């Protein structure tokens, strides 16, 4: 029946007094602390009354007593039985696991941003009340109007004609004709169209002028935006942005190093990938609708060509995959090929 004896220091509860002390551990796991010099009893605790502190590399593991006093062994390698975090320090000591962690961490960052958050966005959007999408759409429009947009310069007759043909198309696709209203705006951003989360579709005067002689091409662009509406891509992006920044600020706040170096770039690149996937989805649906309406998918590739040309890209320019990485939209060639592969004109 041998007692284990440990030299160390005893911190009194609630004050800075410290004594050189010895801890005696009996077979029933009770611990007695005696003053090293005077042999006066400082603490007696039975098993279950005391709690081992953290098991940290290079540091002695203290023993905490219920009143706040603690005993710290002089031997920094000594470990009390019954500690809770032994498994963490075991992982920390295994070099194979450390190498694995160095490889897994960037992989996890990537998976979270490109797979899990988009999946979360897709799954959660149907659960968000309509009023949020409405309000968000109105706020976006207000901001756009303040910063980028001016009142349209299109003649009222032309607006009415585009609206009427859009409403007819909506009807043929089985939607209420007022569900996805068109908004006309003049803007310095050039030819562009966007789907707002409240269901409205904004098109710029430049887009109307660009596709002035090609009604079907304009319709193809509008169908692309309608597809964004149908799939609620706007809300998905909003959810993704919120989820990424919550992840960024709240959950990863303790690993500042990695968030500074990897996450900053990762978040925006992954956001771009998510955006490209949504563009592809919208393209596919727009092409399908064009066919359904008895129009040629070529109308879509004509619109894409015109838009990219107006933007300054050359029609036969090949985008490298590395360049795509930094882009929010798929390459033009890919989008045109997708349209052309839909086959010859149906009529």
């Amino acid at each position, binding site marked *: 029946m041998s007692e284990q004896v440990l030299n160390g220091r005893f911190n009194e509860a609630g*004050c800075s007094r410290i*004594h050189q002390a010895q801890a005696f551990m009996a077979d029933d796991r009770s611990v007695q602390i005696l003053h090293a010099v005077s042999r006066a009893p400082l603490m007696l605790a039975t098993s279950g009354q005391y709690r081992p502190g953290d098991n940290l590399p*290079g540091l002695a593991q203290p023993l905490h007593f219920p009143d706040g006093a603690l005993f710290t062994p002089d031997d920094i390698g000594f470990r009390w039985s019954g500690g809770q975090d032994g498994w963490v320090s075991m*992982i920390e000591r295994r070099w194979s696991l450390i190498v694995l962690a160095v490889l897994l961490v960037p992989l996890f960052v990537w998976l979270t941003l490109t797979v899990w958050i988009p999946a979360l966005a897709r799954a959660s959007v149907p659960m968000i009340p309509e009023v949020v999408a409405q309000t968000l759409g109105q706020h976006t429009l207000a901001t756009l109007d303040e910063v980028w947009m001016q009142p349209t310069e299109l003649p009222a007759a032309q607006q009415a004609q585009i609206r009427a043909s859009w409403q007819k198309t909506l009807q043929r696709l089985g939607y209420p004709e007022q569900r996805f209203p068109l908004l006309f705006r003049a803007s310095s951003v050039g030819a562009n169209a966007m789907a707002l989360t409240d269901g409205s579709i904004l098109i710029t005067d430049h887009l109307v002028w660009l596709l002035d002689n090609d009604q079907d091409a304009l319709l193809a662009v509008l169908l692309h935006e309608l597809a964004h509406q149908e799939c609620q891509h706007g809300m998905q992006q909003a959810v993704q942005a919120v989820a990424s920044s919550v992840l960024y600020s*709240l959950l990863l706040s303790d690993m500042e190093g990695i968030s500074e170096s990897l996450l900053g770039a990762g978040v925006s690149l992954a956001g771009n990938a998510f955006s490209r996937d949504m563009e592809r989805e919208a393209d596919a649906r727009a092409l399908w609708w064009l066919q359904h309406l008895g129009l040629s998918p070529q109308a879509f590739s004509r619109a894409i060509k015109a838009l990219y040309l107006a933007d300054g890209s050359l029609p036969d320019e090949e985008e490298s995959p590395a360049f795509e990485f930094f882009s929010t939209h798929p390459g033009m060639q890919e989008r045109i090929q997708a349209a052309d592969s839909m086959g010859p004109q149906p009529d």
Partner: protein
Amino acid sequence: MELPVTAAVPDPVKDPRIVPVMFTGKGGEYFRLWIVNILLTMVTFGFYSPWAKVRNARYLHGHTQVDGHAFSYLATPMQLLKGRLKFLGIVLLLVIVASLLPKGLEPLLGVLFLVALPWLIQQSIRFSLRMTAYRNVCFSFEGRYVGVLVHFLVLPVVGALTLFLAFPWVTRRLHQYLYENIRFGGKPFTLELQTSYYYFVAFCCVGVLLGLMAFTMIVGGLLGSAIMGAAWAGVAAIGSLAAMVSGYLIGAVFMAMTRNHVLSTLRIDQVVAFQSRVTIRGYIVLSLTNVLLLVVTLGLAWPLTIIRSARYLAEHTSVVLYPGVDDLVNTVSGRDSALGEEAADLLDVDGGFALVN
């Protein structure tokens, strides 16, 4: 219990002792702790994060020792988890309220945030200090709402209105307020900062900035005209490099000078005083090599930079201990709401640990 009191170094003499600050953390050890923390946080979708934060803080605190006694970080993971859930709830509530608010009332939220900001700052400083202990005795912060409002928000605005001429004075007031309101075992820290010294620091920082600009013009212009025949191209190239470096250089000058000044006068009567011998050159070398390490390793050297900084600061700091340090009584009860911790993270405030480290 009446017992003879013996410190780690039994020394019955009533004179103050000068002891070094020891930082015993090791790069490899800390790297492993850090990467395992990140991995566990990720595979648990963030739920391990409070445990990671506590383990991280306890490692760094525990390896910072004065007179053979380590600092300790008292917050528990459950405490932090509750604080984070509360914080998340408040944020969600605000988002919902914001989205339901009628048009034109959005500025109201901004006003609300401004009103809450001094409270958030006060809570975060308070939490970080109360969760830091030395020899079983906690630090604490006695700053109140109005004081924080004046020193953190009002004075900087006033300073900006004077075309930043009053900024050194504002910084001095802020430091004075911050440190004066720290308590250790209920005893207040005192310090006497010199406004003139803060103007001297500002003068040095501006001098470094002007020097860098001149360097950019001359070296960039010469290099540019020699290599490309275009002086402006060289100025632009060297200039962007200088702009990146200047932040670290000026930061280092400011940190080194103010740290020495603050610690030279900071004290608790009959308990503790400090000596800081950080040099501007040493601090600049430290910051620049740390940045270089981070860039070269794509951020993986982060834990190493933490260890290097902590070791450098510890090596250049001494603590004067008076016998009163053996007789302090803890005045902080402990179980604070960790909402302040979240605020601390949000506002990037460091606590009393930053005093010596």
